């Protein structure tokens, strides 16, 4: 399959805008489920406002949240796909910049030292473009995640040691949820990376935080941690917006990687209740948009 990079550029633009406007169905169901089971009156009101906001965004074709985030594009290239990888990255960057200027979106991206904003949602190393490969024949998938800063500022890495065991991982996750409080716009998806190198561990936490609700870690050890930690953090009573209640997290998601004999790394990256993502899949038949 040959890929027309002009269509990739269009898709990169469209994906950014779609992600900001349309919440994935798993997240919408997730908020509705939390609202049904919530026992705290203030928390129920807050969850009700979140549900109302989703409706207003859809009716008025508006953005769900003002935070256009840091744009992240996760590209998965299948087998038999012919493309110029460098040009693909350029096309995504151009699409991201066009979405910002043409819609227009708030550019939330600045130089880390000068704080200068190019008003393009782009800058050095931004958008983040992650490239991976799959064994799906003739498929190119691009997932777009506008990662909001309230939740991204709730990110931590701990290089625990083997003698501290799995207890260090569990304790760290609980303490990060407490430390984050209302700042990460709960209810959150608590993304946890376990193992790897320092940078891989943090990347795993981001993958975990941005996975669909209802998905599970494909490592049984990670899946067991997810289940136990999801129940534990929802005992804390942080609640929606940190104002108390049952609904602290939709779920804790875990991703794992092998690590060094001397290492026991754990990272946490939060995703807010406006857990936005959008996906475009290119096949020989055309482009399909989804989540």
């Amino acid at each position, binding site marked *: 399959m040959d890929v027309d990079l002009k269509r990739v550029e269009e898709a990169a633009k469209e994906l950014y805008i779609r992600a900001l406007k349309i919440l994935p169905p798993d997240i919408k169901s997730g908020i509705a489920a939390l609202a049904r089971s919530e026992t705290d009156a203030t928390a129920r009101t807050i969850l009700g406002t979140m549900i109302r906001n989703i409706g207003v965004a859809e009716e008025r074709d508006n953005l769900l949240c003002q935070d*256009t985030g840091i744009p992240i594009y996760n590209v998965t290239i299948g087998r038999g796909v012919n493309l110029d990888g460098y040009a693909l990255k350029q096309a995504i960057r151009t699409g991201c910049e066009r979405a910002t200027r043409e819609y227009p979106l708030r550019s939330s991206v600045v130089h880390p030292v000068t704080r200068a904003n190019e*008003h393009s949602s782009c800058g050095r190393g931004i958008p983040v473009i992650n490239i991976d490969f799959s064994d799906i024949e003739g498929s190119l998938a691009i997932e777009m995640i506008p990662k909001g800063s309230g939740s991204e500022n709730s990110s931590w890495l701990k290089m625990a040691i083997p003698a501290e065991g799995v207890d260090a991982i569990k304790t760290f996750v*609980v303490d990060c949820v407490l430390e984050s409080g*209302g700042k990460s716009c709960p209810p959150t998806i608590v993304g946890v990376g376990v193992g790897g190198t320092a940078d891989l561990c943090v990347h795993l936490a981001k993958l975990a935080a941005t996975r669909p609700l209802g998905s599970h870690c494909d490592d049984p050890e990670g899946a067991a941690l997810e289940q136990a930690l999801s129940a534990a953090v929802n005992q804390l009573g942080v609640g929606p917006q940190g104002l108390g209640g049952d609904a602290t997290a939709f779920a804790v998601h875990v991703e794992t990687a092998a690590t060094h004999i001397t290492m026991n790394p754990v990272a946490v990256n939060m995703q807010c209740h406006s857990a936005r993502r959008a996906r475009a899949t290119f096949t020989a038949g055309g482009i399909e948009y989804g989540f």
Partner: protein
Amino acid sequence: MTHHEFTTPVDEAAIRALRVNDTVTLNGTLYGIRDATQIHLFDRGRKTRFDLAGHAVIHTAPNVKRVEPSPAHPAGYAPVCVGTTTSARMERFTRPLMSQYGVRMIIGKGGMLADSLAAFAELGGVYLAIVGGAAALETTWIEQIEDVDLDDLNPESLWRFRVKGFGPLLVAMDSHGTSLYTGLKAAAAGRRAAALASLGVK
């Protein structure tokens, strides 16, 4: 748990009457500020031509569209999506906002900390919690972008909005030394041991 309808600006007595868990809806003028706005006002010696005395400021940096200035859009901006950011980053600016500019209400999400609570008690201020991430709804409460100052910081300019029915907002920190966040944080920390025990942590 009383509901209050305010038309801004308000006086100190109106603020002192508020207690946590009350709700407030605002009408009139609302100012938008953010990290860079306050860094420039308080660390870099810049001034604003706006009079913030008795007013509410919201922690925001909106999505806006440049348009031809007109009676509907006097500042040359139309609101696209106006929401709220996490307040705690701007903790150190609460006191100067109140003492130098006379701000009475801070609207944000996630809560503020001990120095803000002390400033609210000493100077007569409150923190009003809005639901973060509910910006599409919040935008329906904005009638107009009336004016903008320090616009070289865009989108972190100092925005002057005209609002109608902006709320209800929850009084989460009052001028009597009470913060919902402090109590809830302590309660959550108190449940830490039970949560860790449920995970089998020794």
